């Protein structure tokens, strides 16, 4: 066991955990933020995607021991104050989720895509989000929502 200080969504948490515990379980069960989901445990489905210093990362593959002090962790709960990030707004406008379980991860990937590519093509979207599985098959709406979010962001300037 070891003690870790995590900075999650700009708040600081002190937790005691095994050094090899994946960040996913620390976020869910020790920090208590349940929006980040367990899907596969092997970085195959993307349900556990969070941002580490802004980069989308599969939290199921990050043992606590490799986190650097002060590294900024952002989860779905931290990307906006009132569920009003352009990606979230577009997700609501296009009624993207069905069961919704994978959507935190989809959104975390989509937010990162727009940050790096403000006007992605369908092909860019397919490439960037191919690591996020949705069993309900919301993919057509994810594509539409990302285009809509890109337009919204461009209009805002």
């Amino acid at each position, binding site marked *: 066991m070891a003690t870790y200080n995590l900075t999650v969504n700009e708040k600081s948490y002190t937790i005691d*955990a*095994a050094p*090899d*515990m*994946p960040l996913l*379980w620390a976020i*869910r*069960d*020790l920090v*208590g*933020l*349940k*929006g*980040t*989901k*367990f*899907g*596969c*445990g*092997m970085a*195959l*489905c993307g*349900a556990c995607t969070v941002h580490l210093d802004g980069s989308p990362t599969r939290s199921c593959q990050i043992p606590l021991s490799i986190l650097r002090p002060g590294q900024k962790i952002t*989860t*779905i*709960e931290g990307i906006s104050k009132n*569920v009003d990030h352009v990606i*979230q707004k577009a*997700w*609501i406008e296009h*009624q*993207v*989720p*069905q*069961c*919704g*379980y*994978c*959507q*935190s991860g989809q*959104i975390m990937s989509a937010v990162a895509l727009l940050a790096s590519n403000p006007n992605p093509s*369908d092909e860019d*979207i*397919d*490439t960037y*989000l*191919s*690591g*996020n*599985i*949705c*069993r*309900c*098959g*919301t*993919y*057509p*709406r*994810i*594509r539409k929502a990302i285009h809509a979010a890109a337009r919204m962001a461009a209009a805002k300037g």
Partner: protein
Amino acid sequence: MTVISRRNFLKASGSATIGLWIGISMLDGCVTKKSVAGAKNFTPYILVDSDNNITIYNIKPELGQGTFQSIPSLIAEEFEVTLDAIKILNSNGEKVLGPHQSAGGSSSVRGSYNDLRKVGASAKEMFIAAAATKWGVNVSDCYAENGKVFNKSSHKSFTYGDLVEEASGLDVPKDPKLKDPKDFKILGKPVPRPDIPMKVGGTAQFGIDAAVPGMVYASVQRCPVIGGTLKSFDAADAMKVPGVLKVVEAERKVGKYSYVGVAVVADNYWAALKGRKALRIEWDTKGYEKFNSADYENKLRSLAEEDGLVDKQIGSVTSVHASSANTCEALYETPVAAHSTMEPINCTVHVQGDKVDLWTSTQVPSSVTGERDNNLPALIGHRPEDVTLHAAFVGGGFGRRLYLDFMVEAVNIAKQIDKPVKVIWTREDTTQFGPFRPMTFSKLKGSVSGEGKLISFEHKVISPSLHDSSSSAYDKTKIDGSMVEGIGAQDYEMPNLKTSFVLADYHVPVCAWRSVTSSTLAFAHECFIDELANKAKKDPFDFRMEMLTKSSDTKRVLQKLREASDWDTKLPAGKGRGVAQWLFFAGLCGQVVEVSYVQNKIKVDKVTAVIDLGTVVNPDTVKAQVEGAIIMALTAASKPGITLADGKVQQANFDTAPVLRINEAPPEINVIVLAEGEEKIKGVGEPGLPPFAPALGNAIFAATGKRIRKLPVDLTNI
């Protein structure tokens, strides 16, 4: 709109609240009522308190099919409240809400459409009557809108909250007047789903998100050889893992099968997983270690030569086949499939004496609390009144969460621990331990006349049986109707038809999977019709329409589909279109799939779907369901199924049991919703799935001349 947890809701509704609540007995369709002043512990369909807080319960678990919007809307429409002015809570299998708290068989909306509208209409009439009395006017001088009752002449109004005390003293109208559909404000409209902001903000609570104070975690090692039993285990190394608290045996019952695994309980889930890896277990594999899928497929191929039990017979196929020069035969094969819900299977349980509390994602709350047969209380030996469900949003069901096996296992673990325990299946567990959709083979034989008309059609199903798996009382001399689903019930006019079933014994538990056996039988049936069209040298669409001379739902759907899919517009070489439709217990959908063929690869370019509903509650949700069903069907048609070697499931995580990814999803899916009257309501969640695989197979034939008779088909190598 805010949605709050049940516990907070009960706190908030507190003792100062005067509640009116309206209930309905689903058994006799009669509306009944109880009003409670200051009650804390009750669950109404509708609750209105004196502060004008209005709550409506959703009695159909939300699995992604939109019931969190559609079901409360049935009540809200008639009650004259808008969805953004109410709280919606998921029900927990409470006895008072009736035994139909379940989602399966595409039945949620069509099973509730009239009953729940009556609940809303009765409540509205009570509030109007209360207001009329207060004003001393006739009820006909009042009307309700936006949660208020208005006086037509004085234009004064009361909120429902103002009227709670008076309304709760009234009798419930037995036969309330329902609205004319042309006056609907919510039903039939693409109203946004109130669960979506929660799912987009990460605050929707799924079963796996349960946080019960003092909770510990468990992971279970089950015998990798399906059918094996536990001989002995050594937990010494597991117990050395920091955080591991206890190692216990855990029995799981799946239909007629019972399995015992070894559960590692720890104060965190990671420690439970590490402890599980350190277990040393001896299994008795009982000879099942010799089982493999390739041999089993051969067994089904030889069973295909047997006669089987007759399901339906019209005319005499045998005499036609004997005399016809244009007869063909084919064997179609489909694999075992896993549901692969994104939310891994999980259940949190706290057993305190006789009392059992469960937090889980389930399709069947009423079975969990004992309102239906084969219920959880019976399986765990507790009284129904002692079992409490804390329901949640469901992270994918597809039939998997109709079953109680994982709850039985979790309860058996919790009985040995004096704390609440959360049992989480890994992805590998969720893939490997079933129950599964069974492997289904179809032997088909058909004849066409010299004029190119279908004159006989025979479909024999060779498969394990869902009923056989669910009960040891299954009578093998009788046909399991669920295994011949739809094949004798299409609208096609066939002068000679025979459907039959050959039971294949299987030791692996099987179960319903989205659209049940139609998910496989439609592939064989509708591809073989295409083969016969080819034999008759007819356009596949024309060939089908010639079997639909009388007016029927299928005829309407296909007519619409022909136009919507541009069927009669020629495609360039290297492209092809295929058509299929399927009518079954859940509903009716027709699809045209358009593919291109480049360098041995098939790409799905476009899918056009026409779904026939009669009445629609939310057209946007319907479209979403059909889009999703098509993508799920493409996974089932083109990705590896579940296979066993040496008795073990060979697939484990999403690398070996892949599901479709966004880069593989068709670029264009057009869904047309036919809703032409309220008399007949068809289902939504499943009908989009069965026609896809045959339409794809038929499109591949059109583009390549190759006939696909075995699924899955590798689209990267045709």
